[in-house]
């Protein structure tokens, strides 16, 4: 169990990170990452939904008839998303206004259905729960990285606190969604670069050993 958890953790955070490796959930990653606060709430919402929908679907996996499994997945995911939406509206009304329709659109985030289909369908509930949680965490971390750079350059703030000590002119491009395209592309580039280099190193080692 411990080893499995470790595998699940590293796979979701790095090797198969939903955003920078699988290029899933890009729409919301572009939309909400102009401020750290919005990204964090969006990420937490997604972690909650992915974790609990994976748990539920995995617990039901031996009872769900195959031919309607996607309907059941959508139903379960939608139920959790609406719960998150209601909860944010009731307790964090300002953030709810800032996120606009994107919380409701967590339903369409491919990461959740991806985990349900690829993992929760074949694995026990607790492990599926953590798989969903870590997939959400992988998504959240990338969103926070993008938001950190966009918020500093676009607003001169971090979590709303002024960090613009140099008094530079803030970049409007970082505030509007196209700014996120550049940031995501750079992150994907860096991640692929690191993986490629590692692969080459391993190859060289193997050659050296032979």
């Amino acid at each position: 169990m411990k080893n499995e958890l470790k595998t699940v953790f590293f796979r979701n955070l790095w090797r198969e990170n939903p955003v920078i490796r699988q290029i899933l959930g890009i729409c919301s990653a572009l939309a909400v990452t102009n401020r750290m606060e919005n990204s964090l709430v969006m990420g937490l919402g997604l972690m909650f939904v992915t974790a609990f929908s994976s748990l539920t679907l995995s617990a039901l996996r031996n009872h769900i008839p195959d031919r309607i499994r996607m309907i059941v997945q959508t139903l379960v995911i939608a139920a959790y998303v609406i719960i998150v939406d209601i909860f944010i509206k009731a307790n964090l009304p300002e953030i709810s206004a800032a996120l606009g329709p994107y919380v409701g659109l967590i339903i369409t985030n491919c990461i959740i259905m991806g985990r349900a289909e690829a993992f929760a369908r074949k694995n026990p509930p607790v492990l599926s729960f953590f798989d969903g949680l870590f997939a959400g965490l992988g998504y959240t971390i990338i969103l926070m990285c993008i938001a950190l750079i966009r918020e500093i350059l676009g607003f001169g703030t971090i979590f709303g606190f002024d960090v613009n000590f140099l008094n530079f002119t803030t970049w409007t491009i970082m505030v509007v969604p196209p700014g996120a395209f550049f940031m995501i592309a750079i992150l994907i580039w860096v991640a692929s670069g690191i993986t490629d280099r590692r692969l080459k190193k391993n190859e060289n080692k193997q050659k050296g050993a032979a």
Partner: protein
Amino acid sequence: MKKGYIYTIIFMAVVSIVFTGLLAGVNAAYKKKIAFNQEAVLKSSILLSVGVESGDDVNAVFAEKAQENKLGDTTYYSIETDSGTAFAIPFEGPGLWGTIRGYIGVASDLQSIQGIAFTEQNETPGLGGRIEEDWFKNQFMDLSLETVITYSGDSGLDAITGATSTSNAVLKIINEFISTTLKELEEAR
């Protein structure tokens, strides 16, 4: 796994009932709180349109300073501000994607706009949605109504980069508001 039709139908029905019931429960539990939040947001928008900061206790400030008035079918508010009474009058009009609604604050002599607040808009987030940002709304403070309002160097009004249609829609709504609703109010008084 292969299962019969009857099982499939019953399974789907049970799952639907369980999850819909769960949602109904959560919705009922939070209904009051959400309605309360929405009312607070509305009240603080009304106050902000005439430049009154509502602070923490919106309801108390609103009850103290605002008074409801009627003009035909529309409800508007006369509000005590530091510089005398002002009116917060509702407006609505077509934006780029949907109806834009809100309140325009007008000085009691009806000669200048004191401010603007949006209560409902479905413009593109990050582009047209930026009409909700303070820098945009603050431009409409203390705006004289002698001439038609335009985006220009003379008026000091800036449109939003990348959101020309929304910017123009807002301007059109405001000018229409001045030529219709405000005229009616002037005649009624």
